[in-house]
């Protein structure tokens, strides 16, 4: 059965349509001239202009971007360390607890994570705001970097690193000069994943944020509760555009690298 049957094509088409239609409609309606969200009143970029005059929204966007940049960067370092630990160090006291703690936030409901972190910050008497959201996001997204990097480390040929060490390279230097360049795409993917997760998060930020540190999802949420508005459609469209662009560029870069690696390997084999 080499051919792709009609039924298979149809189910893939219907599945993808289901995944993309709502987003597409949202994007189209962000260019609607009418204030009524369900009536088409002609093409307009009016709401995008409006957006840049909405100071509250712009402040929230700025807070969100800073939170996401900072937390994604710290998370990537911590998550990569955790991946190395799980991949390389098979015996140390409390390994079971460690692997459990790394995996747990991935399946834990956001409301529980948010509540528990808030209660920690309260008992530490920390003022809630920008930094508490950053700390919370680092903790809750670390597992994703670990999973992505760990799956790459599994297929990494350790003899490369050992060769460097045999030649007298210190282990940490071997990691940075040999291992890291090879697993780099996974690390970058982990960074991007946590960046977008932080950009999107509503529940954990709502629990751990304080006055003066309203993130964009919190702002969007409070507006959405009042109803669908063209401005929100416009904000969402911009966010979707940024994220899609990032993902597509990352995928293309990744593919170029793979192709180059395949070519290098072919040349080396000759």
């Amino acid at each position, binding site marked *: 059965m080499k051919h792709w049957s009609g039924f298979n094509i149809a*189910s893939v088409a219907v*599945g993808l349509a289901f995944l993309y239609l709502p987003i597409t409609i949202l994007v189209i309606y962000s260019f609607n001239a009418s204030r009524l969200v369900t009536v088409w009143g002609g093409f307009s970029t009016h709401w995008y202009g409006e957006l840049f005059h909405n100071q509250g929204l712009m402040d929230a966007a700025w807070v969100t971007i800073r939170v996401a940049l900072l937390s994604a960067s710290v998370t990537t370092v*911590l998550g990569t360390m955790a991946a190395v630990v799980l991949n390389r*160090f098979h015996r140390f006291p409390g390994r079971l607890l460690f692997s459990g703690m*790394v995996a747990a936030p991935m399946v834990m409901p956001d409301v*529980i994570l948010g509540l528990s972190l808030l209660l920690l910050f309260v*008992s530490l008497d920390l003022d809630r705001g920008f930094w508490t959201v950053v700390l919370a996001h680092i903790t809750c997204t670390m597992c994703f970097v670990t999973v992505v990097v760990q799956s790459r480390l599994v297929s990494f040929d350790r003899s490369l690193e050992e060769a460097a060490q045999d030649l007298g390279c210190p282990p940490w230097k071997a990691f940075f000069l040999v291992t890291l360049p090879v697993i780099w795409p996974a690390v970058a993917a982990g960074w991007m994943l946590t960046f977008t997760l932080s*950009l999107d998060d509503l529940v954990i930020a709502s629990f751990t944020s304080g006055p003066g540190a309203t993130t964009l999802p919190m702002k969007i949420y409070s507006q959405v509760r009042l109803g669908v508005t063209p401005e929100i459609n416009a904000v969402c469209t911009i*966010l979707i555009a940024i994220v899609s662009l990032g993902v597509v560029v990352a995928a293309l870069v990744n593919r170029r690298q793979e192709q180059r690696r395949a070519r290098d390997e072919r040349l080396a084999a000759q």
Partner: protein
Amino acid sequence: MTAVPDNSPGQRTRRRPSRLSRGFVVAVPYLWLLFFFLLPFLIVFKISFSQTAIAQPPYLPVIGLADLVSGGWTKLRQLTIDNYTWIAGDPLYVKAYLSSLRMAAISTALALLVGYPVAYGIARAPRSIRSLLVMLTILPFWTSFLIRVYAWIGILKNEGLLNQLLLWLGVIAQPLTILNTDVAIYIGIVYSYLPFMILPIYASLERMDHRLVEAANDLGCPPTRAFWAITFPLSLPGVLAGIFLVFIPAVGEFVIPDLLGGSSTLMIGKTLWDEFFSNRDWPVSSAVAVVLLMVLVIPIMIFQRLQARQEGAV
């Protein structure tokens, strides 16, 4: 001739990571998780046994480090299980737990029904476009969860696009009320978590040796029977992974029931949120969280066991 390096064990110069650097690499993420993940849970656990108080923080007793050292018996005696008896006695909470489990189960079943054919279709697609299809499945996952749920409000509203389309087609005479009902929640959960169902099923179908099915067909087995006898059992690990990946987060979901569900919808994630933000009852919301965690521990453990067995089998 160049000198050949001596590789006898005694002459080895390989530099192994020192105890100190190993310890550092382990300690940093370990301490972080102990402090920001485990400790908060212990605090939630403790506060779930505290009494509600009109104070800042709004619970009693507040046990400090000094109390732990000096025993602090008078304070420890203030701990109660009242919050748990309150939850068990109030039908609202019991109903919310049960209806969360029920709604998550129904949504998971629907996601499987929608996701399996898609995963199967992708696995059977020509190799050249397969990775593109997988990427297209993952891409929506990268866009904001909140935005994707929000997008459905405009579609499902009474005067929304779905009703307009159905009225125009003449399928219905009156607009259907979908938004603010359980149906909207099912749609929202299936839509948001569909990639989690498709990807593991696709992964196990892709690994499968399709010649098995061809052999069965050659021997006269009808395609439907070959599917249930060969393909489906072989894709079962992916199906199970998909079921847990959708079910577990769906139980504690907050955004979907809040935006798409109605006022009569009971889901525990929303109950916890309201208890915390509207009623400001921290001890009761902590107790709700502890019970939710206990409810989820069983499926989480089964899932971890399945994953571990999978990794062992490969």
